[in-house]
């Protein structure tokens, strides 16, 4: 809501006038009404008091004579007074003698009071007047006067005042509306003019003068002021244009300088005499990691933090140094700039004072550059040099004239010469005089672009010792790609050559003994085969003809003769068994007929069980098996394996009928089979010996030659597996063997 203060002057004037006249009228109206009401009330009371007094006097006789009729007549005279509502005469004892009630009136007479009194009650004014005879009160007259007349009169007055007020307000409004314009209009115009000037900046506007009073003076002053401003404005405009031209010139020059600075690859920062940054080019901003806006006005020391690379100590601000010395300063080496993200950048830098025309220093300029690439290159160079220097091999530089140009520690170690003894000297220094110096020829060919593979040769060391060396030569190029020399890596391989010789000798010896062994093995196998095979023949002859001898003996042979011949037969029989087992054993090592095939072990087991049927029936053995896998192998190998194990399990049974169980586990890369029995078991100390050919634990009471398990072991090992036994004496044995899943050679 707008406050009074902000309302337009015109409204203010109208409101002031109307408020003033309204308040005046209201105050005067109220005064008149109040006075009139007071006066009227006084008159009324006096009139009524007189009336009551008269009536009291007139009623004296009626009271004395206790005549209600005349008393009533007296009271009835009050009919003329329309505002008297009720009147009563009370005897002295308070009883009512007569009464008058205006028709339609609701109220009754109020009770008598002690003395003369005027009481104002809600119903109206009550007048009590004692009726006195000879100074004795004989009764009381009470009159009730309706107050309506007073308030009626007040309402009339109020209405009048209000009407006058409205009337005068209306007239005041009309008058003030007109009159305010006289004062307000010039001010409004002036205000308009001022608004127009301030919004359009058009100083040619003038306010209209409408009167010669104070407002007129004000308008005059305003217009004069505008004229003054206008002329100043024109001057300013002109000056501004001149300045703009000058500025454009300056900007152009500045732009050129800025572009120049921005184009410089180095970081450039200029400061004022206090060291506060005035300018930083893009490279500087980028190295400091701050925008120009963040840099401007900052003290250089706050953003340009530099430390010594090794000591990590803060390095003095170049600005401080420049200002102190007033001269160009280069910064110390190994300075590191610490950027905003703590990133460390090695820098090279220099500072210089900025002087005005009179030579007074008024600022500094700092130029610095990121040298990390150069430092990295230097580090790489150092690293390469260190690698060359620390190499165990001799790394030697040659120029194309056959002179040494570099000589590392490795070369010193190998050849015994120090670098200063060789550099600039010809390669013949270390040549082996017996074989001559091949280097000059080779270097000449390298100079012609030929390439050389690694080769071996001999060299003579400073001490005169001849050593074997392996040499690798590579051409050396200058920056234009021209061959300027060769690098040579020479390794002392004297020991290696000797070791290689020894190895070759050892190898040859090994090969010889291997061949010997193979031959021996072949001979042995052949011997075993021939022995078992061909020895059968004469044995058979001995047996059969011994038998024939008994049969064809002339007459009856004596018991001794028969017994001796039986010994011969028994001995040859035993020998034949041994030979036949030896043959079986030797055949496992030989190459079987045909090739390997997929052998179903379930079928093998079936055949073996069939072969042993008589033995199984005889002993009441039971053979159970898990489903067995199919193996790629020779069936001629697998049958004897299973047959020997099962036969043994039956042969070495306990008192119980043999129970044999065959199980198989597929492990990661092999099958593991187990043939478990409930037989007599094997003492721990014999568990390895039982696999030795012809090794037996039992005498003639249990038949056999002791070749069965040796055959089993030979079969399993031939397939790259292993066989062993786990046993508990008296409880049984479990023969376990493994067969690798895939093997090419069998």
């Amino acid at each position: 809501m707008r406050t009074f203060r902000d309302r337009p002057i015109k409204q203010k004037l109208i409101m002031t006038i109307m408020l003033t006249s309204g308040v005046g009228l209201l105050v005067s109206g109220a005064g008149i009404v109040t006075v009139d009401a007071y006066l009227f009330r006084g008159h009324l009371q006096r009139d009524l008091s007189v009336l009551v007094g008269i009536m009291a006097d007139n009623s004296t006789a009626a009271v004395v004579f206790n005549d209600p009729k005349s008393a009533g007549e007296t009271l009835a005279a009050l009919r003329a007074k329309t505002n008297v509502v009720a009147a009563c005469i009370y005897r002295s004892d308070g009883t009512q003698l007569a009464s008058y009630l205006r028709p339609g009136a609701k109220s009754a007479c109020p009770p008598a009071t002690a003395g003369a009194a005027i009481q104002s009650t809600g119903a109206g004014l009550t007048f009590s007047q004692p009726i006195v005879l000879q100074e004795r009160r004989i009764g009381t007259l009470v009159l009730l006067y309706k107050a309506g007349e007073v308030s009626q009169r007040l309402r009339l007055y109020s209405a009048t005042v209000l009407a006058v007020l409205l009337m005068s307000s209306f007239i005041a409004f009309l008058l003030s509306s007109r009159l305010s314009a006289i004062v307000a209009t010039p001010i409004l115009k002036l205000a308009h003019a001022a608004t127009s000037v301030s919004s359009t900046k058009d100083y040619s506007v003038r306010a209209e003068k409408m009167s010669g009073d104070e407002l007129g003076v004000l308008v005059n002053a305003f217009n004069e002021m505008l004229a003054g401003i206008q002329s100043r404005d024109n001057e300013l405009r002109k000056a501004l244009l001149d300045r703009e031209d000058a500025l454009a010139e300056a900007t152009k020059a500045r732009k050129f300088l800025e572009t120049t600075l921005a184009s410089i690859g180095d970081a450039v920062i200029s400061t004022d005499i206090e060291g506060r940054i005035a300018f930083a080019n893009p490279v500087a901003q980028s190295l400091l990691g701050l925008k120009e806006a963040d840099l401007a006005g900052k003290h250089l020391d706050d953003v340009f933090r530099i430390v010594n690379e090794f000591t990590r100590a803060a390095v003095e601000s170049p600005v401080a140094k420049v200002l102190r010395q007033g001269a160009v300063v280069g910064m110390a080496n190994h300075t590191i700039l610490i950027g905003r993200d703590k990133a460390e950048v090695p820098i090279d830098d220099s500072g210089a004072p900025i002087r005005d025309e009179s030579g007074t220093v008024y600022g500094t300029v700092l130029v610095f550059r990121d040298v990390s690439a150069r430092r990295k290159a230097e580090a790489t160079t150092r690293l390469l040099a260190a690698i060359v220097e620390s190499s165990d091999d001799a790394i030697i530089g040659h120029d194309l004239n056959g002179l040494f140009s570099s000589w590392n520690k490795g070369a010193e170690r190998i050849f015994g010469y120090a670098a200063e003894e060789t550099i600039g000297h010809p390669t013949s220094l270390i040549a082996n005089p017996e074989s001559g110096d091949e280097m000059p020829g080779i270097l000449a060919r390298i100079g012609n672009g030929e390439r050389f593979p690694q080769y071996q040769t001999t060299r003579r060391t400073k001490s005169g010792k001849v050593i074997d060396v392996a040499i690798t030569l590579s051409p050396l190029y200058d920056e234009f790609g021209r061959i300027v020399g060769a690098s040579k890596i020479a390794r002392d391989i004297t020991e290696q050559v000797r070791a290689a010789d020894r190895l070759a000798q050892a190898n040859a010896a090994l090969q010889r003994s291997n061949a010997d062994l193979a031959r021996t093995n072949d001979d042995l196998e052949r011997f075993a085969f021939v022995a078992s095979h061909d020895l059968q023949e004469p044995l058979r002859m001995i047996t059969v003809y011994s038998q024939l001898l008994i049969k064809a003996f002339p007459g009856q042979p004596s018991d001794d003769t028969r017994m001796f011949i039986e010994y011969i037969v028994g001995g040859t029989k035993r020998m034949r068994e041994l030979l036949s087992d030896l043959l079986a054993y030797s055949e496992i090592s030989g190459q079987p007929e045909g090739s390997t095939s997929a052998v179903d072990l379930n079928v093998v087991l079936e055949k073996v069980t069939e072969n042993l049927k008589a033995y199984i029936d005889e002993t009441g053995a039971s053979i159970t098996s898990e489903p067995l896998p199919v193996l790629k192998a020779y069936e001629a190998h697998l049958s004897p394996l299973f047959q020997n194990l099962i036969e043994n399990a039956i042969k070495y049974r306990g008192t119980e009928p043999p129970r044999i169980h065959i199980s198989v586990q597929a492990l990661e890369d092999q099958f593991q089979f187990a043939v478990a029995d409930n037989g007599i078991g094997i003492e721990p100390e014999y568990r390895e010996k039982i696999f030795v050919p012809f090794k037996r634990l039992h005498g003639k009471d249990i038949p056999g030659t002791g070749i069965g398990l040796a055959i089993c072991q030979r079969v399993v090992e031939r397939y790259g597996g292993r066989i062993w036994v786990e046993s508990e004496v008296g409880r049984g044995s479990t023969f376990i063997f493994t067969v690798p899943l895939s093997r090419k050679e069998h």
Partner: protein
Amino acid sequence: MEANGRKIQIFVVEDNPGDIQLLRMALDTADLDYALTVVSDGREALDFVQQRGKYAHTSPPDLAILDLNLPKNDGLEILAAMRANGAFQEVPVAVLSSSSSPRDRAGVERFGIGRFIAKPPDLDEYLKIGLMIKELLAEKHSGRN
């Protein structure tokens, strides 16, 4: 070379006289009326089965008994030569071997003909060879009929 039209002509390749003696006893035990042509050398045996040299006009025998291990050429070569000579193709063959080694047995069975007999290391067993020879001859006869 006692050739008799009625006698069963048996060609024996055997270098061991003991075995020849035993063979005769076995054939006698089986009551066979036979005539033996005995050759103890592999080369000579080859001549016989290829009907060369002095055997050029010898007719094929009723039966051949070959020892596997012979000087010069072994029993298998002779067996092969017999299969190659049409006149000898129908001649039943008993191959006697001094071992029962599977390798020897397989070598013979590869030809798919003849009977492999391991020379038994027992007199009574040896004499049973006569009966086996008799069976072979009977098979030949029934085969022809």
